[in-house]
């Protein structure tokens, strides 16, 4: 097994799926000879040609809309949005069309598109290259939303998403691309869309996160272990449909719940997890459900001190863990 970067896992999944299924194709801005602005589609156009690796015009709504049409006519398109911040022009196509195609046709037409979008803040990404968009889309029935946190899951879940008969929004936290490494087997495998994963067992409190926040949370949990607080870290992985059972099982064990997400706190994704715990595990709780999330400002400001003020670091997570454990 080789240890590879998150971005390499994404790239491998593309190569393998396109090689083994002629229906798979990629479309997006700069996905061709540049290989994507982050390198996710590197080497594809050389191997599979311009007909299957389409450098599109700079128009996100038609990237989604054309992909939907392709999917309705026998192809398995992967539509790349350069940054999740720029997916908004395609909101109508994804929400009104892709997510509803099967339901509105009473099961007759399916829409097997993968919408890939790098999301979240990295260094200097500012208001329009750092957004967390998952809450907008996870809200929509008929759309699957995933945010894998390891290279192994990134590759396996992207393959599962490509093979999925329904539309999947595949979110990749851009901070992870080159920082997060992990072991990925050589052969073909998939990671199912749906189940959450307990990444670190613990007795004192449950921490729920996904994407880059999962990495930071694991680091914070290690630090806490040295202080004697054992945190159970659950990787949500699939945001919709949500694996509520795994969440409730963890809370039943630890009796405390902390949810960490980078999006603005107000009506962010963690609010749904908090609500489910409150509704279904109320008598398991020894403390109020706690959220650590991004501040309610329009985005991550650019200047270094402002960016640090916004960012959810392992230090801030550790502080929240201490507070909740002491409650």
């Amino acid at each position: 097994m080789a240890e590879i970067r998150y971005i390499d896992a994404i790239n491998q999944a593309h190569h393998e799926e396109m090689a083994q299924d002629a229906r798979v194709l990629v479309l997006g801005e700069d996905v061709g000879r540049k290989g994507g602005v982050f390198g996710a589609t590197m080497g594809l156009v050389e191997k599979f040609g311009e007909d299957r690796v389409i450098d599109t015009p700079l128009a996100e709504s038609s990237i989604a809309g054309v992909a939907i049409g392709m999917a309705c006519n026998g192809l398995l398109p992967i539509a790349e949005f350069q940054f999740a911040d720029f997916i908004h022009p395609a909101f109508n196509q994804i929400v009104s069309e892709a997510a509803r195609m099967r339901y509105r046709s009473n099961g007759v037409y399916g829409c097997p598109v993968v919408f890939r979008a790098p999301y979240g803040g990295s260094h200097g990404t500012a208001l329009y290259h750092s957004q967390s968009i998952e809450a907008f889309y996870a809200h929509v029935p008929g759309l699957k939303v995933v945010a894998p946190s390891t290279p192994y899951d990134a590759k396996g879940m992207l393959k599962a998403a490509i093979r999925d008969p329904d539309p999947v929004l595949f979110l990749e936290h851009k901070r992870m691309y080159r920082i997060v490494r992990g072991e990925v087997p050589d052969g073909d495998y998939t990671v199912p869309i749906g189940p959450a994963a307990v990444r670190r067992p613990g007795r004192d409190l449950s921490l729920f996160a996904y994407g880059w926040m999962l990495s930071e949370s694991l680091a914070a949990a290690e630090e806490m272990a040295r202080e004697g607080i054992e945190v159970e870290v659950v990787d949500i992985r699939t945001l919709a449909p949500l694996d509520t059972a795994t969440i409730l099982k963890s809370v039943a064990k630890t009796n405390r719940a902390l949810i960490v997400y980078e999006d603005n706190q107000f009506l962010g994704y963690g609010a749904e997890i908090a609500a489910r715990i409150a509704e279904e595990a109320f008598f398991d709780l020894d403390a109020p459900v706690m959220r650590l999330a991004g501040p309610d400002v329009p985005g991550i400001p650019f200047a270094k001190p402002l960016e640090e003020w916004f960012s959810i670091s392992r230090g801030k997570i550790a502080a929240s863990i201490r507070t909740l454990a002491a409650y």
Partner: protein
Amino acid sequence: MTQWTRQTQSTRETPRRKGGGVVSAEAQAVPGGKTTVEARHRALGLSDQDVLEMYYYIALARALDDRMWVLQRAGKAMFVISGPGHEGCQVAAMWPMDKKQDWFVPFYRSVAACLVKGMTVTDMLLGLFARATDPSSGGRQMPGHYGHPRFKILSTSSPVGTQYPHAVGIAYASKLRRTGEVTMVSIGEGGTSQGDWHEALNFAAIHKCPVLLIVENNELAISVPLRKQMAVPSVAVRAAGYGMPGVTADGSDVLECYRVAKEAYDRAKRGEGPTLIEYRVPRLGSHSSDDQQERYRSREELEQVRKRDPLLTFRAYLERVGLLNESTLKDIAERIRRDIDTATDEADRAPLPQPDTATRHLFFEGE
């Protein structure tokens, strides 16, 4: 000169008249002479049988339309949206298409086009009554949101313009998979203001997608007139901006509508890419059953617009060439009335969807 510039040039020469009346090519070319007129449909490769069938579909669509409005007024249907006045161009544009192989991406006025493509009157009325067996959506969508997998009619939504990129994507897939399929997509002129419409044309032209891009221009987007929708004299001139041919045809001249569609279809088949076709059609009714067009259209305008009714102009043509007379017209009308009566009863008897099915088909449930 390339083909598209030449054709776009001819678009600019299309006469536009105040009040929306466009004189039919037939009337201009042949003032009533039987031999010359007869040669018109034959010269286009249409048999007598073809034009009689085309008339049948136009008349069928109109009669179905009338029935749907009666049923709505009688409280049997919640809502109607349809295309009286649009039937001629729809039937003509669909005529070259292969009913089994080719794709159609409709909009809410595509009653006649869907009938020609293969949907039955019963299919459409099952949708009107929101029955469980409605082939478009099983009663989930409002009436007028057509779709039918057997006839490769894509499921329709309500946001205007979204269907254009879908059609282009379907056509791209046909080209990549070398299936030989052609796709036709329809929209009103109001929908051409949407970004999706423009993005779709751009993409289709770049990749020479085999698609007929139809705009049924009735000069009203609900109540908003053409002059407030666009500053250009016709939708078709926009084609030049994307590098594809654009043509305008008078929707009251069914044979001319066919001619331009056939040309575009053959182009698509030859791998030469998309064509933008604008049909100038009269809107004979209100936007929908929730609209009262008398509030924003004068009596004079409505009288004028009725003269452009393709049902009447095409009937007049067929009478002139001796293919229809009072007796055969009566037979056709009788057959249509009987068929629609039967279909109305059949659709009315069909069961409503059960509430416990409302969570079905959110995701794939297996073959």
